[in-house]
Structures are given as structure tokens and as C-alpha cells.
């Protein structure tokens, strides 16, 4: 029998048995050894709330911050006024991009385990957030992602080989060995350089959006944070500036329940939702089932339209679940039950889209298995061509002299001198 979640054991406010205050440290509902049971997490049966006009007043979305926008039912049906009614081609692109992202993550994780690279981060279970979001934006809109939105690059057609070469730190690395695995930078694909300092990009993205408005351009910015880094000041500054200057941007909180080993209650307390953080700042707020790619797409479309038409910023909470460890350095079985992700009531985003396609009569298990196989093979082939350019366990082949480049736009004299001395030493 399922053990009751710990949170129900927590004394309610004012019921600590005395008139004295007590320090309250939030605890996740389940720890290793527990049998996870998420029946206390309410899964809305009706696909509420309604879709308001994208240029509505912010307070008209206050209720949306506490509910959950869903389109895909678990039986595969797509219903409700948020249903974007995507074409079969779009649905197939969404499925393929999510499966390519997952296949790449699998491969890279395994290769890290074999010593081919120092570090890797998977986005398993969260592919709908990045792929669905990217599909609803223009390719020229600038995204400010975290390290778990590689799906944006895959959706926008970035070179998977270049991504892999960066992780492998070889001569094909487009960044010449200047950044670490997974912290990609693809300006031409509207993918800002990922910062290892969490949160900084939130406010920078708002600044970028304000620059778009200043220049009377059509572009918008879409910035990302995990739920953990919403505790950074940057998040609050970003919300404040986005509201004050009505910046054309989308602020995405990907709530995957876990910041390494800290569950989401550590970042927020046991409050209502991360989306509700936006209400106090006067922003439009949406909370969306992040494992439902159609809901992610629909919410993003709504927010993008609002931003582009001068309605200002929207805070979207993508409610999802981190199926794997935080990174290759993490072992989640130390702090949560092994089968926690399977008990998560919102399912897996790829499985849910697959079911929808089957319900439309355009897909079946055989086709799905064949696609999974071809994704795996394609990733394998790309990886092989990438690793042919070097990997961590062999000699790296990043050009030594590039170290001195791009510190400044034009190399200053003292750096030229250092470079000359360096080359004399090498010769």
C-alpha cells in the first residue's frame, strides 16, 4: 500500500502544538525506499482554463497561474479551446524532434560514461517543453535557454554534429574549446550562449527584448529558468523589468520538480505555483502541462502573440518532471525513489504525442519503433563523424592559438605579445 506523502505529516500552520513558532523545512513527498504515490497531485480532468484574448489585462490570467492548461487527454484525444489543431506534418516534426533529442541525450550520456567527454546533461521527459516552445516561436526570436532546452536547437535545425563536437571538445567545436559541454551558443539559431551562472540570462533576455522594442523590430525574446533558480534575484528583477517596461518577452519557468536533490518546495515553499509569482508583478501568467506538447505549443503561441502585439510579457510555468539525474555527476536514487518518475501522473511527453497520433489514425506501434530505430541510427552516425574529430580521452585538437582570440573584439597589444611569446615557446 502506498505510503502517504510526507507533506501530509507536516503540521498545518498554527498546529505545532504550542504557541511558539517552529522552523519549517519543506520535505519532498517521497524519499528512497518509499513507494511514490502522486494521487494527491490533482490532474485536471477538464481542460481548463479558457483561452482568453492574448491582449487581455494581466489580472484576467491570475486564475491560469493556479490551474493547468492541458490539450492532450491520456486517451490521446486533443480537446478544448487551447487545441492548436496542428497539421499532421507539424505533429510528426514535433514527434521526430523530441525523439532525436532523446536519442542524442541517450548516446551522449553513454559516451560520457565511457570517458569520451567530461560531463553531460539530459533533458529526458522535458522534450515537449523545448520542442513545443521552439515550434511556436519564429526561428528569429531569441531564446535564452538553460542547459535542458537542447530540443530548441534540434527543432531549429542546428548542427547536431557541432553540438557533439563541443561536448567532445575536439577540432570541430564551433566555440574552439571556450565553453563547457551542453552550454551551447548558436546565435544564428536564436540560441543565446548558455550561462553557467543560473539566472543571469533572465534579466539579459528581458534587456534583449527591450532592445527589440527600442529598435521597432518584430522579434521577441524567450527566457528560461528552472524552478530552482527562481530563487535568484535575477528572476525577480526580470519580472519587475518585464512588467515595468512591458518588454516583448516570455519568461519560462521549467518546473521539473528537482534542482539537483532539492525538490521544488525548497525554491518556493509550499506555495501555490511558480506561475503565481508573476501575478504580483502584474504579468500575464500561464501554467501548462509541460508533458503535453500541444499545450506547451498553445501557451507559447498565446504569449508570443501577446508580446509581439505590444501586450507585454507572460510568465509560463511548464509543469513537468526531470526523469533522469541532474547531470552525469548526479545519482538521483540517493534522494528520491527509483520509480518516482514512473509514478509521476503526467506521463511521458513522447508517449503522449504517440498516442495522439495513433488516435488520429496516422501512426502505429510499428511506425513508432521504426522511427525510434532510425533516430538512434542517425545519432549514432553523426556521433561517429563527430568523434572522428577527437574526444576527451584522446589528444584534443582544438587549435592552441585560438585561446587568445575573442577576449576583445580586436586583440590588444599585450595579448598579441602573450600570443607571440606562447608561439615561441611552442616552436
Amino acid at each position: 500500500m502506498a505510503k502517504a506523502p510526507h507533506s501530509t505529516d507536516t503540521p498545518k500552520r498554527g498546529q505545532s502544538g504550542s504557541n511558539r513558532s517552529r522552523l519549517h523545512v519543506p520535505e519532498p513527498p517521497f524519499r528512497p525506499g518509499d513507494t511514490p504515490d502522486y494521487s494527491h497531485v490533482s490532474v485536471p480532468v477538464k481542460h481548463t482554463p479558457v483561452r482568453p484574448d492574448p491582449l487581455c489585462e494581466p489580472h484576467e490570467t491570475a486564475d491560469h497561474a493556479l490551474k493547468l492548461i492541458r490539450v492532450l487527454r491520456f486517451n490521446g484525444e486533443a480537446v478544448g479551446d487551447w487545441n492548436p489543431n496542428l497539421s499532421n506534418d507539424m505533429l510528426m516534426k514535433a514527434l521526430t524532434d523530441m525523439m532525436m533529442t532523446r536519442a542524442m541525450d541517450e548516446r551522449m550520456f553513454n559516451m560520457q560514461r565511457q570517458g569520451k567527454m567530461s560531463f553531460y546533461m539530459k533533458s529526458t521527459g522535458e522534450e515537449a517543453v523545448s520542442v513545443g516552445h521552439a515550434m511556436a516561436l519564429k526561428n528569429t526570436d531569441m531564446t535564452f535557454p538553460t542547459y535542458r532546452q537542447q530540443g530548441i536547437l534540434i527543432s531549429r535545425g542546428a548542427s547536431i554534429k557541432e553540438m557533439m563536437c563541443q561536448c567532445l571538445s575536439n577540432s570541430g567545436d564551433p566555440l574552439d574549446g571556450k565553453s563547457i559541454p551542453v552550454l551551447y551558443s548558436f546565435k544564428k539559431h536564436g540560441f543565446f550562449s548558455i550561462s553557467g551562472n543560473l539566472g543571469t540570462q533572465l534579466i539579459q533576455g528581458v534587456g534583449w527584448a527591450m532592445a527589440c522594442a527600442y529598435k521597432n523590430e518584430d522579434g521577441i525574446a524567450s527566457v528560461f529558468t528552472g524552478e530552482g533558480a527562481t530563487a535568484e534575484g535575477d528572476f525577480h528583477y526580470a519580472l519587475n523589468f518585464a512588467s515595468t517596461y512591458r518588454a516583448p518577452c516570455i519568461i519560462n519557468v521549467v518546473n521539473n520538480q528537482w534542482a539537483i536533490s532539492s525538490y521544488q518546495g525548497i525554491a518556493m515553499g509550499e506555495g501555490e505555483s511558480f506561475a503565481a509569482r508573476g501575478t504580483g508583478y502584474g504579468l500575464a501568467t500561464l501554467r501548462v502541462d509541460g508533458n503535453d506538447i500541444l499545450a506547451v505549443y498553445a501557451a507559447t503561441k498565446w504569449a508570443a502573440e501577446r508580446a509581439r502585439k505590444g501586450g507585454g510579457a507572460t510568465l509560463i510555468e511548464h509543469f513537468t518532471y526531470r526523469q533522469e539525474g541532474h547531470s552525469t555527476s548526479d545519482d538521483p536514487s540517493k534522494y528520491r525513489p527509483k520509480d518516482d518518475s514512473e509514478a509521476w501522473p503526467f506521463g511521458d511527453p513522447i508517449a503522449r504525442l504517440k498516442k495522439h497520433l495513433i488516435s488520429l489514425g496516422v501512426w502505429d506501434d510499428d511506425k513508432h519503433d521504426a522511427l525510434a530505430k532510425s533516430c538512434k541510427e542517425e545519432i549514432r552516425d553523426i556521433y561517429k563523424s563527430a568523434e572522428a574529430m577527437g574526444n576527451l580521452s584522446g589528444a584534443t585538437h582544438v587549435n592552441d592559438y585560438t585561446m587568445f582570440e575573442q577576449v576583445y573584439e580586436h586583440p590588444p597589444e599585450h595579448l598579441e605579445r602573450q600570443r607571440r611569446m606562447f608561439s615561441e615557446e611552442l616552436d
Partner: protein
Amino acid sequence: MPINIQMPALSPTMEEGTLSKWLVKKGDSVTSGDILAEIETDKATMEVESIDEGVVGEIVVAEGAQNVKVGAVILRLLEDGEDESALTDDSGDDTSADEEIEDKGEDKPGTAGPAHPENEDANRDEPPSVPKTKPQNDPDIPTNVAMKETTIRDALRDAMAEEMRRDDKVFIMGEEVAEYQGAYKVTRELLQEFGSRRVVDTPITEHGFAGIGVGAAMGGLRPIVEFMTWNFAMQAIDHIINSAAKTLYMSGGQMRCPIVFRGPNGAASRVGAQHSHDYSSWYANVPGLKVVAPYDAADAKGLLKAAIRDPNPVVFLEHELMYGESFDVPDMDDFLIPIGKAKIRREGSDVTIVAHSRMVGRALEAAEKLAEEGIDAEVIDLRTLRPLDTDTVVASVKKTNRLVCAEEGWGQSGIGAEVAARVVNEAFDYLDAPPARVFQKDVPLPYAANLEALSLPNSDDVVKAAKTVCYK
């Protein structure tokens, strides 16, 4: 005995102001709390309240008078029973206006309070004048150009205004830069000329608007971010260093960040430890940043214009106590000074004194004092702290064989330490004495006037160091 009402100071650094309006006239009776006049400085306006009762005997300073010194008598109030004849009877009045002004003078920036009888050293007044020695050759300034006397405040303002006229991508953002015209009035009239789209008041969050600026720069604009003081930029330092300075590199050259962070740096007058920090060596330590710290108005203008046009992030360190100082500025279009070039402010043959920002003034004063003692000092103004123009310093030391590095900030890991290390490395055989350094005492800057003056290096410290390296 009539009561002398003096020109009040709005702030510890105010030296003079404008008497904009009288609200009383001769013969009026006033009581405590009545508003007598309105005065204003370039920073703010205030009302002068009477704290005494009496009859207005004489209005000493006329309405509209400008540059009224703090402490000057502006009105004389007749006490109960006095008549006008009291106004001329100053005999035995040991609080006469002249002396009041002198007493007040000790509150001026850069001067200490009265010497403690047991501590002669406490009275280390600096002359209030700022040396304006011109170098014999200044390649930055054409010889046929007229000069215009300009305060540093206005030189900075002119630089921004000119660049904003030239390039629509340039805008300024910060706390109180628009409606209030800048906490130190450096953005005076920019809002009126360029509007609120380009002169943007921000919420009170240095971290927030520094991040906005970095994002806007990477998004193709050329922001000028004003910090009310660099002390407040401590919370913005993550954006300045981790993002502005490093992203070009980490993105393999894709993400560009042309941005200027500017504001007053270092000690001001009686503002305590948290408002007096000199960040010169902090920012000068970071690859990817350029760091500029000008001394006079021409450099302030020419270097700020160059900073705004620079494709890299530039940290521009101003000095609160220098904003009101006037210097000659070449009256010409597009007066730019290249970032990364030091300037020989005074030529000399016996010892090289290296300084930056306000300390250049102290070094020039020291050079004059040294000249009286037969020591001919060369004074180098670094102007840019990163990239550091070592060549100019080394060439000078090869001539003088002696080096004094002077700075207002702390010594450890300071600019002087860096300059001395480079000179030892590149000109060791030319040195006739170990390099000497002059810097702030190794304590948070205290508030009390005498302690503040004791903490900060002055021209006598530079003289002493120069004599030490000259073995005199």
C-alpha cells in the same frame, strides 16, 4: 548683536550654490520655522528655514546670485530690541562672516577638520585648487584648437550627448538619470533632448539594470549604464564580469557586448566605508573588460566618447570629488582619446610618479613641492587601467631610474603593485631604487573628517615616497 544667517550646504560635498529666491524682505518679522529663501545647486533645491526670531535687517546676497559660497552670510536678522545701527557694529563680534566662511571651509572636500591639539598630523589640509599643469606635447589635442573651460560633469554630459546625437543605438539608463538629471547631474538636460526612450529611469536594482544593459548590448544597442556610485555596482558585478566580459569569448565571438558602465568611484567626502571604495584594481583584473579612469575634463570627454564607440564592455571610473572641477577642453567635433594610452602630465628627469584619476592631481602637487627641493619629477597619468600602457611608464623609468606608484585605493593587489611589478620585470637594470608605492591605509574608509584625511594618501605622501627613492 544681529544673527548672521549663512548659506547652508545641501550635502557634504556642496561648496557653492545659487540663491534662487527670497521669500522675505527687509523689515519682515520672522519666527522660527519661517521659510526665508530657496537655494539650489546642480544637484537639488532646498528651502532655508529660520531657526531664530527677529526682524530682517539686511539681505546681504541678492536674489538670483550664483556661486554663493557655503557659509557666506546671506541675511542678517535683528534680534528683539535691536535696530539697524546694530548692523554696522561688528566690534568684538568674533563670529564675523569672514571667519564663519573660513570655519566652514574645513568641511570642504579634501580637507581635514581642525587639528587635534595632541595630533599635529591630523591637520593635513590639501590646497583646494586642482593643478592644471599642461604637458609640453599633447598629441591628442591639435595645436590650433580653441579651449573651453568645462567641468568634468559637463564634459561627461557633452560626451554622451554628442554620441547620442551621432548614433541612435546609444542610450543611457540608471537610477535617477532622467527626471532628476542624474544623482550628480551628469545627465543634465539629456532627457529634454533625447526623451524617455533614450534616457531611461530604472527601478532601484543595479543587478537588474546592469543585466538589462548587457542583454540590450548583445541585442545590438549601445547602452550606457550609470551607477549612482560604483559602490552600488557590487551587486551588478556578476553581469559585468561573468556576462559582459566573458560572453564574447565563451560564445566563440558570436555574442557581442558594446556597453559602458560608468559612475563615480573611490572616496568622496565624509560618506563612509560603503560609499568610498576604489574598484580600480578589481575591474582592471578582468580580461574582456576595458577600464578607464580619467583625471581631467578633456580626458573625461575624449575617453568617454571612445568608450561609447568601443565594441567591448568598458568600465568607466569617475570621481565624485572631481565632477565640479573645471579644465580646458578642446572645442572641436569628435574629440576622441584612444583607450589604452597613458599621458605624461609633467615632464621631469629625476623620478617617475604614476597615478590615475584624482590622484594625478595629488601627484602634480607633489611634483611642484619636489621642484622646490630640487627634484624634477615626471608625472604619468595612466588614464586607462586595462589595457595598461606599460610602455610609457617603462620608457619614463629608463630616463628617471626611479618610480613612485600612487593611488587612492588600497595597496594590496593594487594598480601600483601591478605597475611596479611590470617595471621591475621590464626595466630592472635601470632602477636605482626599489619602486615605492603610495596608497590608502589598509582600513575601511572611516567617517570622521580627521580619520578620513589620515586614511587617504595626499601629496605629502607622494613627496615623501619620491624623496625616499631619490635617497633624499
